[in-house]
């Protein structure tokens, strides 16, 4: 059985393995053990409501195979993008250069460094074992965050953002970085990314030049990378678009990848999810597949299960599901169609 639950320290080794797998390079999950350990610690304190995290909670969910105890994926939610520091992006904008005498109105795309997304709720650190990429468990992992946020709206910002990884070239170079950031750091993307991981992204952003960047002066490849998702991120993009996320004006300062934005209340999972009282029963069979979670915050659980939804406030689930969700008779579960 695969379930989503808050991460614990015993997941550290498994998560580290995931984080250092090749395809995880496009995730914002850090790769250093001490950084991962810090992240788990922050998540534990956040789920526990520890004061030290107040207002800048960082939640990390894991996808666990309960039969083996293996962690197969992670999905994070930062209450507050930037985690108390400014959260930087480039905002795509344009300037009009007019010459009335020449009857010319040139629209020049420019990138402004901005921190206006600071404080919005950020989805991050999504990674999953390669074997499970194409399965429904990827959707379970990614969308479990929507149930968490939908259930506990008051704990999150009303705006959700996600930074989608940008494109790299065949040699693993990042054309956007190579044409922009690299000039100011004299280091390749991987090195900058490494420092971003061990220091902070804010730290790097503050070293970037403060004047707007004229897009026409970037290389063709860099211009093409602006707002373009990495092929490995396309599946997740698709899922997020289906949920109601939309591409905004902001892009990542490193790789030029797009930022998706949505209001919590406009998300399909949030709009369609229902909560009902549990009746544990052995006689459930078949039904429609749902994402189902319990009603607990600190002991949040989310799984895929089949339900036959009726009209009343009570829903039948079987013993196994009740156990996975850690719910008893007449406690409430929340569910949305898979």
């Amino acid at each position, binding site marked *: 059985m695969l379930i989503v639950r808050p991460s614990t320290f015993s997941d550290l080794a498994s998560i580290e393995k995931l984080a250092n797998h090749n395809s995880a390079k496009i995730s914002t999950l850090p790769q250093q053990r001490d950084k991962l350990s810090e992240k788990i610690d922050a998540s534990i304190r956040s789920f526990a409501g520890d004061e030290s995290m107040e207002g800048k909670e960082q939640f990390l969910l894991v996808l666990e195979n309960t039969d083996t105890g293996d962690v197969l994926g992670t999905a994070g939610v930062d209450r507050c993008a930037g985690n108390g520091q400014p959260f930087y992006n480039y905002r795509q904008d344009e300037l009009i*250069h*007019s010459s009335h005498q020449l009857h010319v109105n*040139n629209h020049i795309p*420019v990138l402004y460094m901005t921190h206006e997304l600071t404080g919005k709720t950020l989805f991050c650190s999504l990674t999953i074992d390669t074997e499970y990429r194409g399965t429904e468990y990827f959707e379970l992992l990614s969308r479990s965050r929507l149930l968490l946020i939908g259930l506990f709206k008051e704990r999150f910002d009303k705006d959700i953002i996600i930074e989608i990884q940008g494109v790299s070239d065949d040699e693993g170079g990042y054309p956007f970085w190579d044409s922009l950031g690299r*000039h*100011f750091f*004299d280091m390749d993307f991987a090195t900058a990314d490494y420092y971003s991981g061990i*220091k902070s992204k804010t730290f790097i952003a503050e*070293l970037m030049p403060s004047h707007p960047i*004229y897009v026409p002066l970037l290389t063709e490849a860099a211009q093409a990378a602006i707002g373009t998702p990495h092929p490995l991120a396309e599946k997740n993009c698709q899922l997020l678009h289906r949920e109601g996320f939309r591409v905004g004006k902001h892009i990542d300062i490193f790789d030029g990848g797009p930022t998706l934005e949505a209001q919590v209340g406009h998300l399909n999972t949030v709009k369609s999810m229902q909560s009902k009282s549990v009746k544990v029963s052995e006689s459930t069979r078949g039904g429609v597949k749902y994402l189902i979670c319990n009603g607990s915050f600190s002991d949040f659980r989310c799984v895929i299960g089949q339900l036959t939804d009726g009209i009343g406030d009570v829903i039948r689930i079987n013993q196994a599901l009740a156990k996975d969700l850690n719910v008893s008779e007449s406690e409430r579960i929340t569910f949305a169609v898979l």
Partner: protein
Amino acid sequence: MMIIRPITENDFSDLCHLAKNTGFGVTSLPDNPDLLQTKIERAEKAFNKKVDPPHAKYMFVLEDTDNNKVVGVCGIEAQVGLDDVWYNYRISTTVNASTELGVHNQTPTLYLTNDLTGCTEVCSLFLDADYRKNSNGLLLSKSRFLFLADFPEMFSEKVFAEMRGYSDEQGHSPFWEALGKKFFTMEFSRADYLTGIGGKAFIAELMPKYPIYLPFLSKEAQEVVGLVHQNTEPARAMLESEGFNFNGFIDIFDGGPAIEAFVNNIRAVRESFKRHAQVIKNPKESVGGDKSLYLVSNRSFSNFRVALVPGSSIRQDTIDIPVELAEQLQICSGDVLRAVSLRDVKR
């Protein structure tokens, strides 16, 4: 005899003839009679103090008095950018540093500025090809420094010269290709032409206003920033020998340098001295040749005249001036002249 004097309306046809021969890339002397007529009129007004001094645009000619022919021209603009808007890029340095990351990067950065507004420009130098010998070029160019030395109150304390930037044999400017062209679809030659007829300011409306980080330009463009066209190398060397320096200002189109000096730092100004004229009948033969030539000016504003004399003419208290030259300089014995060695003797 070669003499420098203010331009007059009688010089119009000679000037048109000169302008025909300037060739591509010399935008300061356009082959356009109407414009040239305007320039002469403006210069005459300036010498007659009929314009507010900061707005004055002076123009001098080099005349071969043996055949009454104007063979060269040069100008001084008292203060640029007062009637239009004067643009340059200024190369600035942006430093990104983090000891923690071991990063300390200097990024040259171009700022669009109007900073030379109000400065004096020496400009419009052109000499007939047949006369490019016998120090005529130096006489033509450096005579202006004596004018600055004689009338500093009419000029800014800073003076500059714009140098034509690098372009290849086909006339392509890599700087233009990498920057200007991306912001408005126009060939360099057309931009250059519009500049020449005074359209620089409105072209600049289309140029980017925010700073440009130089590494965003092509390698070729980066390499030619501040470089002069090879035909302009001698002019640059001459001005540098007089104390002009490149201080970061470049042309917004071709990236050519504007080189500058504080007037009181220009060698020909600094080392110039005043001495009484002694008009003589039978001058000795000059010794020492070109090396020991001196510029002498009559220190007149409206009738400014400059000529070359041999170093042997320079006496302890006087300067020997042959009768014929005295006539051309419009001076008598006892008049106070300004003189300076044509070249920096120490160099």
